[in-house]
């Protein structure tokens, strides 16, 4: 169940606010500074303006993407609204294997400044859901407690490889060069329906705390994203267009600005700067000088920067009053807000300390952090406890809880209490701003609603409380961790050469490299690599009989691709594996993919819908997903919709999905798939041939890796035999293992060379390949053998391969007399017959048929006769 879903299903209409603030004639674009979003059924429109933090519709309703709005423009037709963004990521968007890099449990409301060169930062304006509030929290500080759950916190920066602190040094002066957000702050507040001072204050405070942190990083990361945008498909065309129109003049001007001492400007200076377009240039200059920025920012970027400058500068000059006003408010707002925040975190104690901290906070986040750490021990203790609780709750909810914020008062008690004790100012403000959309939200706790919450709720989509947030009861072990208890003493290591060899020959021991599959490896590697680099999608079908290394090769490919992704040679990607045999029903494939992708649990239908949305949504902030579907034929359903979807998603423009499928039969697409599915699978196919004896020999040799346990001839015999039968490497390894065992047993007696020789291998081969029917017949009792003979005699008489028990029994009795045995009676005869039937030497009908049950031989007559004769 999603909390945003109701909102999403509503029709949203997007309108520009006011007139265009700038125009780019060459690109035929008009720039705007704010946009209003009206939702059906709501009286008031929500407004988003430049610099604001917004939610972008994503594939996960619970956790829409978070970003800061940098630019808004429309093309000449006026139809398509485009937004340029700085992304933030939630923990659940960070690749699963990287999450532990954080080294702590993420705060449920925590987001990270996203710095990734490969991420497209232009999205369709109509994917904007609304505004959201973000607060910056210094690295050392605990997360503020008791804030509305709509507020998101930023502490760290995520650059796809590690979490880094947002450098306060960068943060502090950032107020001055940070032009786009302040410049747009005016319009934003202005756009509020009731420009009540307290509302403004709150709005400001939210942005202030947050704004102080982001600029430095943001500009650099922006550079990266711009850089990557030139590479990525979505923005490719646009940037190319712009590049062609590049002018060198503004570039020079910007270079000059680079040297301007804008970093040390006071807040007033900032205000001043906000008024002119220089600020924009400082931003871009920062962009070039940013320490985190990659050196690879090349000349290709300049047209983009220039463009931006051109378009934003009129914007800032357009609103001369507002920035000043906001600046005035800033102090007040901060003062008004921070105490309450401190109070929250300090569990309503120490207002003085809080005020102190707040004062410092204005100018030097580092100091604040330091002092607050030293002085607010008790507060920290309490808050950490609450945080723990939060985390607990967050874990229960799943990682998507980030987005659900503070709407469910009933399940998030600490925040409620804190909210109730929030300051009068806020109460007032709340009443003022409780203007829109709240009606629905009232659930009997109107007074306790916090101001920021209502404010945000006016913009953010309404959420219905998720059922997952129900308080943790010991009802079911829902979050039980699957594990097998560990043993008391560690397993013994192999002692001698044979044991060592056996351990190496076990199928499970993963070899360093896969010999004999170099060509296949290269093909798959190239395929996946090209798709990952291009950011496109595709399908591949891999076939081959069991035990030819299909899955192992794909895993090997992924391993080496991941290695090169670590080393930044290719963009990062997600690898997900599902196996048709490891699910109970084909539709479970959706559930498993979704769970591995986003950690969500859902029913198959819902999962399918969510995945559909994810892979077709235009939101481009995605890494490529490489999906391995093992045992594809098990995903067959009558309508084949599972397969259809799996092969259809990669063809979507924004999916960035690479699907590798594995099955045993080469002609699976032709045999079981209907045309539209087979067509989507495409013709990228590969077939793994069974191993030849040379390859098998090489595999064993490379596994043994100079452990001398086998005679050369013995190895050759095994590989030749297996190659002739199946070419199954598993079989080959199993035989070798068995041979070492036989050698070990016989070795103690004969005191031979200690190597596995021909005789041992022969014995192992015999054990595994020889049919047991003959020895079973030889070891059968006299009556059983007679009965088999009677069956054959009856078959010969009838000229058929089938007879009833009655007929055979007559023969049997006759044979008994010939052999000088007392003839068996019917009961005995049936017992003998059934016993042969249970071994499947005979094939029988149900014993209920009694005399008339039909008998067939399950062995060839010659085998039976051979076995009986030799007796």
């Amino acid at each position, binding site marked *: 169940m999603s909390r945003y879903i109701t909102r999403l299903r509503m029709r949203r209409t997007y309108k520009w606010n006011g007139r265009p603030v700038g125009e780019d004639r060459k690109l035929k674009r008009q720039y705007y500074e704010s946009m209003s979003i009206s939702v059906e059924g709501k009286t008031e429109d929500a407004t988003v303006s430049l610099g604001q933090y917004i939610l972008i519709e994503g594939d996960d309703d619970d956790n829409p993407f978070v970003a800061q709005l940098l630019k808004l423009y429309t093309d000449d037709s006026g139809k398509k609204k485009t937004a340029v963004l700085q992304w933030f990521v939630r923990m659940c968007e960070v690749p699963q294997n990287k999450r532990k890099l954080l080294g702590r449990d993420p705060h449920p409301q925590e987001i990270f400044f996203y710095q990734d060169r490969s991420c497209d930062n232009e999205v369709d304006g109509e994917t904007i859901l609304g505004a959201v509030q973000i607060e910056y929290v210094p690295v050392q500080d605990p997360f503020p407690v008791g804030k509305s759950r709509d507020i998101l916190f930023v502490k760290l920066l995520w650059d796809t490889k590690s979490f880094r602190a947002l450098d306060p040094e960068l943060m502090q002066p950032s107020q001055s060069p940070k032009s786009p957000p302040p410049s747009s702050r005016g319009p934003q507040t202005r756009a509020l329906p009731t420009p009540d001072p307290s509302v403004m204050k709150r709005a400001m405070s939210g942005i202030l705390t947050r704004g102080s942190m982001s600029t430095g990083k943001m500009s650099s990361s922006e550079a990266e994203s711009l850089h990557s945008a030139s590479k990525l498909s979505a923005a490719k065309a646009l940037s190319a267009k712009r590049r062609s129109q590049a002018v060198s003049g503004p570039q020079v001007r910007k270079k000059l600005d680079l040297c301007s001492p804008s970093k040390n400007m006071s807040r007033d200076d900032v205000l001043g700067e906000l008024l002119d377009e220089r600020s924009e240039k400082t931003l871009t200059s920062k962009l070039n000088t940013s320490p985190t920025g990659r050196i690879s920012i090349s000349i290709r970027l300049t047209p983009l920067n220039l463009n931006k400058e051109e378009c934003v500068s009129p914007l800032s000059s357009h609103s001369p009053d507002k920035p000043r006003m906001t600046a005035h408010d800033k102090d007040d707002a901060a003062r008004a807000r921070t105490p309450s925040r401190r109070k929250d975190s300090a569990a309503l104690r120490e207002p003085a300390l809080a005020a102190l901290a707040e004062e410092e906070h204005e100018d030097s986040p580092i100091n604040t952090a330091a002092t607050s750490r030293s002085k607010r021990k008790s507060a920290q203790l309490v808050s950490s406890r609450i945080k723990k609780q939060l985390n607990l709750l967050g874990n229960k909810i799943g990682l998507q809880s980030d987005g659900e914020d503070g709407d469910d008062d009933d399940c998030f008690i600490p925040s409620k209490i804190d909210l109730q004790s929030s300051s009068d100012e806020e109460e007032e403000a709340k009443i003022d701003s409780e203007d829109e959309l709240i009606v629905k939200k009232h659930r009997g706790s109107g007074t306790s609603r916090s101001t920021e919450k209502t404010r945000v709720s006016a913009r953010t989509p309404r959420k219905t409380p998720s059922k997952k947030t129900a308080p943790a009861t010991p009802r079911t072990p829902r979050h039980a961790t699957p594990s097998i208890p560990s043993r008391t*003493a560690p397993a013994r290591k192999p002692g001698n050469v044979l044991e060592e060899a056996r351990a190496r020959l076990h199928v499970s021991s993963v070899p360093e490299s896969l010999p004999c599959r170099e060509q296949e490896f290269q093909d798959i590697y190239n395929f996946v690599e090209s798709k990952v680099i291009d950011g496109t999608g595709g399908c591949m079908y891999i076939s081959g009989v069991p035990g030819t290394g299909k899955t192992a090769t794909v895993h090997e490919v992924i391993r080496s691709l991941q290695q090169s992704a670590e080393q930044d040679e290719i963009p990062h990607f997600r690898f997900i594996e599902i196996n048709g045999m490891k699910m109970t029903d084909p539709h479970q494939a959706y559930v498993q993919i979704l769970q591995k992708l986003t950690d969500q649990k859902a029913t198959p239908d819902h999962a399918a819908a969510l995945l559909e949305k994810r892979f077709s949504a235009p939101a481009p902030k995605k890494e490529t997903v490489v999906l391995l579907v093992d045992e594809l034929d098990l995903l067959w359903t009558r309508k084949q919709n599972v397969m259809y979807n799996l092969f259809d998603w990669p063809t979507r423009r924004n999916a960035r999905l690479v699907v590798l499928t594995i099955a045993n039969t080469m002609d699976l697409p032709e045999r079981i798939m209907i045309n539209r599915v087979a067509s989507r699978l495409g013709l990228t196919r590969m077939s793994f041939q069974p191993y030849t004896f040379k390859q098998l020999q090489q595999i064993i040799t490379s596994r043994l890796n100079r452990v001398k346990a086998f005679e050369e001839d013995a190895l050759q015999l095994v590989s030749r035999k297996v190659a002739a039968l199946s070419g199954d490497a598993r079989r080959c390894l199993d035989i070798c293992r068995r041979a070492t065992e036989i050698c070990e047993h016989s070795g103690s007696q004969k005191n031979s060379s200690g190597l596995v020789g021909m005789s041992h291998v022969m014995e192992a081969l015999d054990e595994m390949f020889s049919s047991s029917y003959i020895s079973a017949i030889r070891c059968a*009792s006299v009556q059983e053998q007679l009965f088999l003979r009677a069956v054959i005699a009856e078959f010969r008489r009838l000229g058929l391969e089938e007879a009833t028990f009655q007929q055979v029994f007559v023969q049997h009795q006759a044979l008994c007399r010939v052999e000088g045995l007392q003839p068996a009676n019917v009961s005995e005869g049936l*017992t003998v017959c059934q016993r042969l039937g*249970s071994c499947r030497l005979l094939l029988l009908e149900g014993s209920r048929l009694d005399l008339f049950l039909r008998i067939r031989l399950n062995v060839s007559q010659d085998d039976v006769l051979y076995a009986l004769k030799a007796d």
Partner: protein
Amino acid sequence: MCLKFYGELLEAQNQPVHSSVSWAAERHLLSALMWTPEIRHVASRKYAGQWREITGPAPVKMSKRRSAALTGAQGISLAQKLLRERLCHQKLPDQPVGLDSQYKHLLELLRRTAVHGESNSVLIVGPRGSGKTMLLGCVLRELMSLKEAQKNVLLVELNGLLQTDDKIALKEITRQLHLENVVGDKVFGSFAENLAFLLEALKKGDKSSSRPVLFVLDEFDLFAHHKNQTLLYNLLDVSQSAQTPVAVLGLTCRLDVLELLEKRVKSRFSHRQIHLFSSLSFAQYLDVVRAQLSLPPDFPDPKFSDEWNHSVTKLCEDKTVEEILRRNFNGSKDFRSLHSLLFLAVSRVSVSHSTLREADLIEAWRLISVDSKANVLHGLSILELCLIIAMKHLNDTYDGEPFNFQMVHNEFKKFIQRKSHSIHKFEKPVVMKAFEHLLQLELVRPVDSGVCKVQREYQLMRLMLEHGQVMEALQRYPQCPTDVKQWALSAFG
């Protein structure tokens, strides 16, 4: 039904004073059990409680305090108790007979899983009664006596007859492993969740640090009939990958079990098969009989046990007894049929004759080997017998083609007309009634039970008796009229 009776029978046998168990009931039961090897199999398993015996204390302790002074009755009941335990598979033998190499192989394999954490898979294949479970029980007993293995090994036992689909099997595995989604005896979550959970659990383990899990799959072939063989695939896949060490032990009597496996499942199976084919000669068989019947040296009353053992030795040398045992040996080499024979013989020992005599064994053999239908035929009325004979003649005339009541009645009438003096004239309804009784006894069976539209008189039937069975029954039938006998012997109706 059969199970319940068998249980009651066993309980009756276990009572100390055993005198008058209804032989008829026993006979019926035994013959019934003869017909259904699967059920017999389960019944013996059910009452064997094999696993508990391995780990738990020995179920019977000799009461040492009244060692020498046992009365005759006490000695007998004690001896019977001891032998019953042996013969009803309640106690594992000290050493499996004639399975030494298989024993070593299996033990070595499991030891490596337990100690080295090496994953393995193996099938134990052998006909019913060949000692698969016994072998495994002995191996596990030995394995558990190793200190290293004792604390480390987790055992999961499944039976294809009980876990009839993967869903149930999965729950059972989860329950026996005490995974975390088990509360009490209940397993939470859907089938899909359980599977994912179990696989996740097994995946998290690794070779050196997780406790190895032994999966014992009794009636392995039945698991191969589960949908997609999901369970087998996953277990065998774990055994072939670097996850929690597992040993998958399949027990089956089907020789063609590998052909049941899907190719990808088959590929993951290690193809180790341990075959249990008994290659006993008759002399060895006799030795086994002697050993099975002998009382152990630590029997509290040495005098009694000496006497008993002496009588057993003498018994085995007896010609008739040897003949009986040879016939049993010819019938099947497995010990289960031998045990049921000896069991009946031992049960006949009482205070009046305190040793095992050949008469006991002969009587036991008679009970065991008697044809089940011949017994039923003894209880028929003359009229019913006449109908059977009429049907036999019809069978002879029409070469086994089905007949209907009308035909039988005609045949019967012809006979009455010829020999009216010896048999009453029966009205047709009375004959019909007798016919229906035969139908109920399933001595006659409709050819196609699906079609009921046909009038009862004309419904096609088949006789479920062999020619020989009818003749034998007639020979033994008390006071059978000579005319009827002659009619039966005559070549034409």
